[in-house]
């Protein structure tokens, strides 16, 4: 079985669907586009395709091939194996994605994808230029050790990325029973929202079942429209600053660290961690929100809206 480069094949279709969404935006008024924001997202997407060519792709490929040499089983290259590999890769993606939000070292790369205040198909292409190497090796090597061929692992990873493209839209509402199993535009809007109610939720790639299983699922509610971006939104469209701003901030923090504990906290603590608690992690933001909205909830007789 031959495994094509799924992402490269999909690039022209990405462009086509962006144009279709722009036309729909002009005709219906749903969604939101801003040229400089889109340009920044597209530049990030372009850079993310170029960056691995500087050695990262080769390192990851070598690691997968190396792990495959020590495989426990030999999984044949059949259709059922591709389906199984896709599901396991999606589980891998869930945890990798979750760590990318919970550990600042990984967040420094992933923040790029969340740095737009818009949510449209160009946002899907706003991808990191850094940080795929370590994460890919840590999380994909087990699949090779299980016996899935490295080419198959790369292929299903590409399929997952392609799947996630179309869910970055405000054009699609809710999808009935599919919402139970699949990651949908509605679920992923929640993931990109900065509303405290929605923070740190819906990490799924293609299957939302992982969030339901591991307690991170939050439903989009009509009374609270998602507001996209990051809790401290960027002040620039410059792709270089978008790519490296969190790394620079982390380096500054590291320089100011007065102990190993502080240094480790700045590097591997949750985003927003600080030694004196003067900055806000998402847990603290949610706590503040619960505290500030408690009286109004009691008055309304409602339960906590946080479902995660």
């Amino acid at each position, binding site marked *: 079985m031959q495994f094509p480069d799924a992402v490269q094949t999909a690039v022209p279709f990405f462009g086509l669907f962006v144009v279709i969404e722009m036309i729909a935006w002009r005709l219906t008024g749903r969604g939101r586009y801003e040229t400089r924001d889109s340009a920044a997202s597209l530049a990030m997407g372009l850079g993310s395709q170029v960056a691995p060519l500087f050695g990262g792709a080769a390192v990851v490929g070598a690691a997968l091939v190396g792990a495959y040499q020590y495989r426990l089983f030999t999984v044949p290259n059949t259709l059922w194996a591709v389906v199984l590999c896709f599901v396991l890769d999606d589980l891998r993606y869930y945890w990798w994605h979750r760590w990318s939000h919970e550990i600042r070292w990984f967040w420094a790369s992933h923040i790029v994808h969340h740095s737009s205040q818009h949510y449209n198909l160009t946002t899907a292409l706003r991808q990191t230029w850094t940080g795929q190497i370590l994460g890919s090796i840590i999380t994909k090597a087990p699949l090779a050790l299980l016996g899935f061929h490295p080419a198959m692992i790369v292929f299903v990873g590409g399929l997952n990325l392609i799947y996630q493209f179309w869910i970055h839209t405000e054009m699609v509402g809710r999808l009935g029973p599919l919402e139970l199993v699949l990651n949908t535009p509605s679920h992923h809007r929640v993931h990109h929202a900065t509303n405290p109610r929605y923070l740190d939720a819906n990490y799924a790639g293609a299957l939302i079942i992982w969030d339901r299983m591991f307690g991170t699922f939050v439903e989009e509610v009509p009374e609270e429209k998602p507001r996209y971006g990051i809790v401290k939104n960027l*002040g620039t469209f410059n792709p270089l600053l978008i790519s490296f701003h969190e790394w620079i901030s982390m380096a500054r923090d590291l320089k100011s660290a007065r102990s190993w504990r502080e240094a480790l906290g700045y590097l591997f603590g949750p985003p927003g961690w600080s030694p004196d608690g003067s900055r806000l992690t998402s847990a603290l933001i949610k706590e503040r929100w619960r505290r500030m909205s408690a009286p109004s909830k009691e008055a309304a007789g409602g339960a906590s809206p946080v479902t995660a």
Partner: protein
Amino acid sequence: MSGDELAQLGLAVAVTLALIGVSALFGAWRSIRIDGPAARDRLAFDEPDFTIDDMMVGIDGRSAVAVDRGKGEGAVVFALGDSLATRRFRLGALGAAAASTRLRISLHDVSRREVDVLAPDVESAAEWARRMQAAPLERRDAVP
């Protein structure tokens, strides 16, 4: 980089430029004009425990500055395309200077080094620069 990779890169660059052009043609190159309600709404969302005791919105609609005397804090709201962003800071912790009607606040921020707020007159710019810098006095005055 191989010839194939170069060709793929060329295609991706062409698609990117075409999409930016289409976006501009569709009228997506838009800039927001900040007014008081927009600035208050953004601050209330980003910093819900920040109490706006006073605010000055730039006459060009590009930025606004606010003060929470009780907490001894300031905040700026600035435009980025059709969106808004905020920064909150301790009064006296950042540089603030007035030059004619322009109040310039220097931020310790990688993605935005400074924000200019265009005051309606020279006196307002100078007064807000003083407020941003004179933190201890403002805080003592404000604490009940």
